[in-house]
């Protein structure tokens, strides 16, 4: 398995929506390299013919009747909002100006 580079960590940080500082990049690159080196052992079983397990329970969708039930009021639902306007979550701009 290849090690992990500082550039790869910068890419992972972007994908993870983390605006890391330069010194964090160096530190995490070093630590992630050690961790990935240790966990890469799992690929010992990569060629084994066993089914993957994603979950300890045999999951099926759980449905309920589509009826209105008591729920949070708009005030309660918005109570933790960093910003709100007209009973809605107010967010920074999502699309560009043009």
């Amino acid at each position: 398995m290849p090690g992990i580079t500082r550039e790869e960590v910068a890419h992972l940080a972007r994908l993870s929506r983390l605006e890391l500082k330069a010194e964090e990049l160096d530190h995490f690159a070093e630590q992630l390299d050690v961790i990935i080196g240790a966990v890469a052992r799992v690929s010992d079983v990569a060629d084994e013919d066993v089914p993957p397990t994603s979950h300890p329970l045999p999951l099926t969708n759980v449905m309920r009747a589509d009826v209105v039930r008591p729920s949070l009021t708009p005030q309660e639902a918005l109570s933790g909002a960093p910003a709100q306007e007209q009973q809605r979550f107010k967010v920074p701009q999502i699309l560009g100006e043009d």
Partner: protein
Amino acid sequence: MTDIIIKLTAAEIAEKIASGELTAVEVTEAHLARIEAVDEKVHAFLHVDREGALAQAREVDAKRERGEKLGPLAGVPLALKDIFTTKGVPTTVGSKILEGWIPPYDATLTKRLKDAGVVILGKTNMDEFAMGSSTENSAYGPTGNPWDLTKIPGGSGGGSSAALAAFQAPLAIGTDTGGSIRQPASVTGTVGVKPTYGAVSRYGMVAFSSSLDQGGPCARTVLDAALLHEVIAGHDPLDSTSIDAPVPPVVEAARSGSVAGMRVGVVKQFRGEGYQAGVLQRFDESVELLKELGAEIVELDCPSFDLALAAYYLIAPSECSSNLARFDAMRYGLRVGDDGTKSAEEVTALTREAGFGPEVKRRVMLGTYALSSGYYDAYYGSAQKVRTLISRDFDKAFGQVDVIVSPTTPTTAFAIGERVDDPMAMYLADLCTIPTNLAGNAAMSLPCGLAPEDGMPVGLQIIAPAMKDDRLYKVGAAVEAAFTERWGHPLLEEAPSL
């Protein structure tokens, strides 16, 4: 009086309240006074809800005066891990990103506790988002181990385990994704149970790794843990992974402890390099004790367990990288850098940088890496295969034995600061607890003595098949009774007074 009340077990407190010997308000005030007296040193609590606790206690007392029937834990105080939402009471998950957040709803577990008349004293410290084995990853500072305040109380539920060992509460709640109930119990000389996956609702429990996370009871005795288990377990339509089946008879099992005629497995992979000599010594004595009590010991080989830690540190980070995407600074929690010039995406990245601590950032990036194209099959895909192999090893083992025993952790509590910047060393604390999470079965840790070299508590882990949680209590109660008789008192009597 305070000194007497805080040493009582939950079962004793409930009985004295029911009989009128004590009021719930007296019991609550005694514990609040204890918190006031020692928590500056221990730092088990992030938030103490004095008013809410006393109001609940008054309600229990009023119910009794009206002659209404009280539940088996009515009026008993409890320390709640700060990962469960509490309506109107701050819930931080040990993170700056949720600092000051007041949830508008109760978790199902919180609601069950309230309905049972349990008195929630406050919210306990934890590693941020339950990621860690020492509680040092809390954004609000570490918690001390009441046995030695310079040492860790375990993690992630170190606040809950410390609150029990410091006699600040007779009951506590933890969550166990890779050992976060059992390892803290082990290093503080208390009892902790990870129930079968799906036994306790995860609704309102902040998600870390959804296929592994499981809430469970923490206490100072096996019976108290069973009483709490029965209150919090059971089907919840609000959690689609909640098991729709009767709760195993855990209280009955705890009241009839016995191992006579049972087959107890010892797995050869659960010892070797990295295990402290004193831990193995106490474990071997526990196995001898089980033999004396009439159990048959069976040696087991579970080769895939050697890969469990590696698989866990791919699966848990992968799931957390997805779960923690919801912390986007839009609907609740921290928002940083929204000065009108930045995009939503930039604000999200600045907020997560400011709001998450180093361990959370490491795991989110590790998970993102493991799930990225090109690495997915080699890492995440292989880890899922290991998970299958571990379940097969357990299935084979439980074809031969009723329960498995092991040390809960390879070492006793380490010093605060010792491993905090060495992630792999920290991860080794979960070596014996992780296989159970990956397979989804049930396990308990209970005290089995002090390590001779450092005088710190050692935990014995008992593992049972899924939905056979009652076996943990049956075996645990027998071991606890035999050790208490041998020591002449419960282990916590030997802890220094704070």
